[in-house]
């Protein structure tokens, strides 16, 4: 359980790093300032949601691997 919490912590730190260094830098140009901002915000939000889904999938796999044996024992 301690390992599971530790892995979750590392995933939060890594996910935050990717969001800040890569996703937040996304910008769109050519449609006017307001539309550019709106499109960029939507793209960022979609990527952030995909990250959360990926995070849940990874944890789910991890959970099954670590805990299934424990439950069946």
């Amino acid at each position, binding site marked *: 359980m301690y390992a599971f*919490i530790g892995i979750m912590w590392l995933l939060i730190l890594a996910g*935050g*790093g990717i*969001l800040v260094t890569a*996703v937040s830098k996304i910008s769109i140009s050519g449609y006017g300032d307001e539309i550019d901002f709106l499109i960029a915000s939507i793209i960022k939000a979609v990527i952030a949601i995909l990250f959360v889904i990926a995070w*849940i999938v990874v944890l789910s796999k991890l959970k099954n691997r670590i805990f299934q044996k424990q*439950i069946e*024992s």
Partner: protein
Amino acid sequence: MQQELIAALVVSVVAFFVVYAITPFLIRELGKRKLAVPDVNRVGGAMVPRPGGPAIIAAILISEAVLFLVFPSDMRNLKIIALMITTFLAFVVGFIDDRRVLGGWFKPLALAASAIPLVLIGIYDTTSVYDPNLTFPIFGSVKIPALYIGIIILMIPITGNTINSIDVMNGIASGFMTIASFSLTIALLIMQNYDVALISLPLGFVSLAFYKYHKFPSRIFPGDSGALTLGAMYGVIAIIGHVEVVAAIALLPAVINSFLFLSSVKKIVEHRQIKNPTTHTEDHKIIATKEKDAPITLVRLLVAGRSLTEKEIGFTVFRLAIFSGILAIITAFLMGVRV
């Protein structure tokens, strides 16, 4: 600074002793009105008064009101008002759920609605209630003004229901919240956010005082009104203190519990509607059930390989909470590090 220290001492004492003094009276009143539920893990199935939420909310409102009066024309007062309104609304949601059995979706939706005053006060004063950026350790922050409102609306139901879902055995919810909230206060102090650290103190002391009556063998249960009040206040502190990530880390064991539950049940349901994930041995210890369709929870995992007493399970959860609290404090230190 001296004034802040005196205020910290006063609100801590007020928060602790209001719960300490009111709860015995509440236990008697609930007993007289036969508002009690069976403690399913207790030998003989004793009836335990519920809910303790009124004592918890009274202590929070009184101690935060004291803080409000100490600094009458201070910028932090808007944060205190936002916290008091949202926390009170979460209490009302829990109290309704304590009195009537409502659907699984009622609580998340009603808690989301209780976050609206916090959003509106933040829109009214865009500088002093919350900062619509999400800050991560080491890497910095992301500006998400529109998305941040969604985070607030989600945060209160998540923290509220997370604490509610870990309230499964004597003393766990209040003990866990004591550890998590003091970890959060330490993190706020490390990040030099002294105003919100001060505002957060009542949460830790209210939880600690309530733990005295909630610990094994419980004399009172917090009920949904108590658990949702504690969880919602924790969520509000995370937002007004700009420590969303740190707060989530301190809460990890409870988040894991909710995650395990939701990923095994695969829908939002009332806990009363599901099979018990644990059962009892002949010597009345608690052990994981063999039923395949019972949900996987934190407690079920802790007793999967070995049976434990209720008290031992509580202390195992508290050790996990301390571990997460340490990670949260490390994260607070990392907030000052930039690459």
